[in-house]
């Protein structure tokens, strides 16, 4: 009996080791609902959690979730602390010089302004954005004064306390906030920025990129990606 227990536990151990051989670490921010956030149980949750888990299943990879501050999310990928970024990161040329992107898994999402009043001045006033985002570089190149914050939450707080006239962010992020808070509203004007959101991988990691590309394509083909996009209200479907 003892031997049997030993044998099965040895088997279980070797099985779990074999399974663990292909661990891919997914880096995300965990502060950008509905894309990715930390749920009540303290785990990563959201659109990208479900998407990432499904992609890993299709690519037959074992995936683990890691949270990392947005500011240092690219340097930590490049130095190998995790293997892919899945954090609502829009595909831009500047980022593409440093890392590689898989094909996009969302349509280009319009960015909108959230403000306390409908007549907020977004061309000459003060506009908040998260540092290192496409929205921040857009404001910097427009006439408005840019104030940057490290987290999305702080950009909203800046509008609430009057430090900024408006905040520019992905519409899918601002929509639920505007819906739950009567004092905040979305402005009519949208900005079309970026080329959709993709996963970021190291430039030298062509194999992983190909696996995720194939998995994303298969989710696009059978419509399951569209279901996820609709479920989490991310924006336009494919």
């Amino acid at each position, binding site marked *: 009996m003892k031997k049997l227990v030993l044998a099965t536990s040895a088997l279980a151990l070797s099985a779990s080791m074999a399974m663990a051989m292909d661990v891919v670490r997914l880096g995300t921010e965990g502060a950008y609902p509905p894309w990715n956030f930390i749920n009540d149980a303290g785990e990563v949750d*959201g659109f990208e959690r479900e998407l990432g888990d499904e992609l890993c299943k299709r690519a037959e990879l074992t995936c683990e979730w890691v949270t990392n501050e947005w500011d240092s999310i690219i340097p930590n990928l490049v130095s*190998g602390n995790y293997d892919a970024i899945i954090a609502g990161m829009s595909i831009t040329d500047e980022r593409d010089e440093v890392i590689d992107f898989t094909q996009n898994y969302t349509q280009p999402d319009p960015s909108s302004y959230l403000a306390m009043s409908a007549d907020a001045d977004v061309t000459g006033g003060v506009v908040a954005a998260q540092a290192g985002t496409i929205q921040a570089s857009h404001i910097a190149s427009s006439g408005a004064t840019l104030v940057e914050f490290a987290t999305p939450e702080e950009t909203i707080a800046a509008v609430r306390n009057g430090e900024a006239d408006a905040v520019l962010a992905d519409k899918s992020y601002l929509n639920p906030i505007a819906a739950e808070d009567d004092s905040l509203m979305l402005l009519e004007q949208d900005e079309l920025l970026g080329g959709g959101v993709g996963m970021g991988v190291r430039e*030298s990691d062509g194999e992983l990129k190909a696996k995720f590309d194939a998995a994303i394509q298969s989710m696009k083909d059978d419509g399951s990606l569209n279901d996820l996009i609709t479920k989490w209200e991310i924006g336009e479907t494919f």
Partner: protein
Amino acid sequence: MFSYCADPSLLSGMSWLSCYLTTGKHAAFYVSFGTVLLLLAITAPAALAFGFAGASAARSRVWPVNWIGKGYIAVVRGVPDIAFFLFFVIALDQMFEWARHKVKCPDWDQPIRQGNDFVVCQAAKLPLGESPQWVHEAYGFSLAVLTFAIVFGAFAANVLFGAMRAVPRAQLETAEAYGMSRRQTFWRILVPQMWVFALPGLSNLWMVLIKATPLLFLLGVEDIVYWARELGGTANPRFTEYPHGDWRMWYFFVLLVFYLGFTKFSEFFLERLMQKLTHGQATTGGEAQRKADA
């Protein structure tokens, strides 16, 4: 946690709060207090060891050792903490992996640096790609401890270097007159007497170290400030069962109480230590103690 927590939207008052404060997310917040305390408990002696080595090196008569000691103190003290943390940890990690790569994969023919990427063979990865999450976390944590120890070690080295010079010259000359070697004088006379001069500076460093722990998140370790910000931020009812407004003020208030309480406790303890170290020393404090006893 509790059975009545199944549907928090029906609860109110204390029962809601009891459910809210026992979510998994809050558990992570409570655990992070332990992380911070553990970091302090390991970093403080490690930094002291670095400081002691640095100060001893800076006093050395052998010039390469002397240069290393003085160079360490000057360079690390001069670089801003945040730059040091962002750059140094990544560099340190890459240095370890590079060394392991050279040993373990001698037949590797691709370059390690490919543009921006740093690519080593799978066997050289630290920690190994297949290791469970906790190994990664423990590794990140020990990198954090090492970095903190190096940074604060440089400041401690400077404090100790000054303290060593503050020991009255007469004490050392007397030791020499008794025929002690340089080594004996250092260990038996200088080191036991220097602590009383070093303690005010070291206690300052300890206070700064306590407050420097939020730098942990730069290294991917989730500390109390990270969780306070995360938990305190507006909780949208679509993404949580416990919606609330911007409660960051309350969470940061808890941190304020924690930090103030901790520094107060430290001050009390350091005061006791100072009294102990002063005992029998050739300082005004020691003299005052002697008179009071007499």
